[in-house]
């Protein structure tokens, strides 16, 4: 490789974004709607992981949990408490929905950290669908539960009357920006980290800076591990916050 040219960058091939390419798993045809692609494969793997942890891990129903069962219970308790604390008791009806999002994102993120893997959550198409579904669901729940009272979310009673229309405009804009920030935050974080790792990995081909490069990859990998969890947490907790707004629009 590039080592023969003694650090000349001419031989380096930067393809940091290639890891995000969606391609069919079998053959080389076009990507149709039901084509089995690497997206399918890694999402299926995420499903298997969720099933392994939460279904197979708890099949003993042990009073004194095994390790896997402990982790499953920990995940359950973590999300359950989050929903209870942020949304309140009446939000627990939506707990399975938030748990689904959290488990899918956390496993997709972690699976994406495996070398040569494909990170489904780094795609804006994926995160946008989740964010839009959250947005639509929350808005529908808000109107079903509160009727026109849901507009109270934008009409801030605590503010002086003069400011309220201006604040209402700002609130409406911020409300509609929610799905955008919600989805881009997750996809952007995942994509950026993976791309940076790939760039550093390419530099590792140069003998002189490869130790530094490997160190940097290690450091960023650690950071990415953290980010993987935190972004799943952020996505879930923001969903909870939006849900709370829908259930209790009177701030």
């Amino acid at each position, binding site marked *: 490789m590039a080592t023969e040219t003694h650090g000349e*960058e*001419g031989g*380096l*091939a*930067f*393809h940091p*974004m*290639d890891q*995000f*390419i*969606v391609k069919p798993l079998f053959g080389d045809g*076009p*990507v*149709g*709607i*039901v*084509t089995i*692609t690497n*997206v*399918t494969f890694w*999402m*299926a793997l*995420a*499903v298997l992981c*969720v*099933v392994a942890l*939460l*279904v197979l891990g*708890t099949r003993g*129903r*042990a*009073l004194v*949990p095994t390790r896997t*069962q402990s982790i*499953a*219970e920990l995940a*359950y*308790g973590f999300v359950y408490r989050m929903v209870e604390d942020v949304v309140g008791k009446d939000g627990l009806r939506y*707990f*399975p*929905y938030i*748990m*689904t*999002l959290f*488990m*899918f994102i956390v496993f997709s993120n972690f699976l994406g950290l495996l070398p040569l893997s494909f990170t*489904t959550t*780094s*795609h*804006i*198409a*994926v995160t946008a*669908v*989740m964010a839009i579904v959250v947005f639509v669901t929350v808005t529908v729940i808000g109107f079903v539960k509160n009727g026109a009272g849901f507009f109270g979310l934008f009409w801030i009673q605590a503010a002086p009357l003069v400011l309220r229309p201006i604040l209402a405009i700002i609130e409406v804009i911020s409300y509609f920006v929610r799905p955008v920030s919600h989805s881009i935050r997750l*996809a952007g974080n995942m*994509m950026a980290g993976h791309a940076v790792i790939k760039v550093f990995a390419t530099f590792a081909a140069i003998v002189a800076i490869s130790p530094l490069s490997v160190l940097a990859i290690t450091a960023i990998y650690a950071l990415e591990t953290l980010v993987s969890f935190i972004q799943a947490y952020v996505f879930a907790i923001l969903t909870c916050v939006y849900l709370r707004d829908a259930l209790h629009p009177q701030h």
Partner: protein
Amino acid sequence: MATEATDAASGAAESSVGMPQLDFSTFPNQVFWLVVTLVVIYLVLSRVALPRIAEVLAARQGAITSDIATAEELKQKAANAEEAYESALAEARAEAGRITAAAKAEMQAEVDAAIERADAEIASKAAESEARIDEIRKGAAEAVRDVARSAASDVVAAFGVKVEGAAIDAAVAAQMKG
């Protein structure tokens, strides 16, 4: 740097777009599989996993609560047993004290009686001895008087003087008194 840029550009050209994320032709595929995935996870969680975990957690909570109650009960029992033990111990101590005191008193009485008996015996023996000593003393005085009288009459006789027995008696008695 320039080659780098061209490399990146050619890499991008290979993948036909700069960011695969913005390759809209793959969107339907991703959305379709995402929906399938989420539905599957949701069904698995809401039908199997979550009720099961909730059940396990509730069972554990119940077990913990009942165990704590049992522990409380056992603790109470232990405290009761200790109390009973303490009272039994105190009772036994009091009993032992009582028995000791009784034994002491009995022995004291016995000792007192023995001492009294011994004292009486000693007194009687002493009185008897005293009587005998008196008797002996009396006997001795009599003997001295006899000896003195006979010695005096012998001495007087040896001097060739004839003295009446009564005079000698009186002289001896006077001497012995003096």
